[in-house]
């Protein structure tokens, strides 16, 4: 039992659990699933700076911050007590592409050459973490939602604007991974 919990979970289990969070949040508290709004709530709580966008009663949304604390605790538990004893399985073609670009750490969830505090001083590490993170925060707010709010919650409610948003996330990701990232990764 514990062994099968420790192995990576298949997509259908993960997908089903994530999908069930939609009705669960609706039924226990009339809450719509959406995670990027937490970044806004944290800004509103900590750095409102008299900006109109951050002047609202963020305390009314505190349930979502409780949800996020749960994510942090859950990820901690999974990492410390249920972690996969084996190296992550990665597509061989991707390994080859990355190896040619100087990324060779295929042990864990993130390659340490790109995502560690040391790599922050390399151009590619800085661009991926700092510029990438900025785009996630800026883009999700501009789009009024992220993968959870649009792709999962919005599509679950058959909202066409969420379909437009989802197609655009995928397009942006496709362009970055296939056409821009190979250049960024050269600058280490």
């Amino acid at each position, binding site marked *: 039992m514990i062994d099968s919990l420790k192995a990576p979970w298949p997509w259908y289990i993960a997908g089903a659990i994530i999908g069930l969070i939609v009705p669960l949040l609706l039924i226990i508290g009339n809450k719509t699933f959406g995670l990027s709004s937490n970044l806004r709530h944290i800004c509103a709580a900590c750095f409102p700076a008299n900006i109109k966008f951050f002047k609202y009663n963020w305390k009314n949304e505190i349930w979502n911050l409780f949800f996020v604390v749960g994510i942090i605790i859950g990820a901690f538990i999974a990492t410390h007590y249920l972690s996969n004893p084996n190296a992550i399985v990665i597509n061989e073609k991707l390994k080859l592409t990355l190896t040619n670009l100087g990324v060779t750490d295929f042990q864990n969830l993130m390659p340490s050459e790109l995502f560690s505090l040391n790599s922050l001083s390399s151009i590619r590490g800085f661009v991926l973490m700092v510029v990438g993170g900025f*785009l996630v925060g800026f883009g999700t707010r501009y789009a009024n939602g992220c993968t959870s709010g649009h792709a999962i919650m919005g599509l679950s409610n058959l909202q066409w604007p969420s379909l437009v948003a989802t197609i655009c996330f995928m397009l942006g990701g496709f362009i970055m991974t296939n056409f821009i990232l190979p250049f960024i990764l050269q600058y280490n």
Partner: protein
Amino acid sequence: MPMSNHTQPMNDNKLDETSACINHSEKKEAGFSLLKYTFIGMLFGIVFVKAEIISWFRIQEMFKFQSFHMYGVIGTAVTVGIISVAIIKKYNIKTIKGEKIIIVPKPFTKGQIYGSLLFGLGWAMTGACPGPIFAQIGAGLMSGFVIFASALLGTWTYGFFQEKLPH
């Protein structure tokens, strides 16, 4: 069949409405009552790590069409979500406190196109959408803290320039 129970008027307050992440419950919740969200979040955090959704490699494979995994996760989640919401609407299921369940649709703005494209770029760079950023922090990955701080700055910057941006 109408797509939802609500239609949102598009008016001068469009920006306020599109950007609101509104809580529709009239009931106030506090203290221990909020912990139920933490428990659901924990389940979610475990899934993020165990299904390797927080892995940069899985996101690269997705955008290179080299693995079905992430498509399977998102596809299953959306399918389960659609069926669940349809059941809630058809049988008019109420919340545990007896409230009518309300889902206010997000109105369309051009910002969803520009913002989503920018977010897509960032998602492929960091390998993390906002949920997994928090999971990376819980998993003890230092990159999670850096990405989180940058994402906060990005959100703040959006708030600062919001009224000047095309929507």
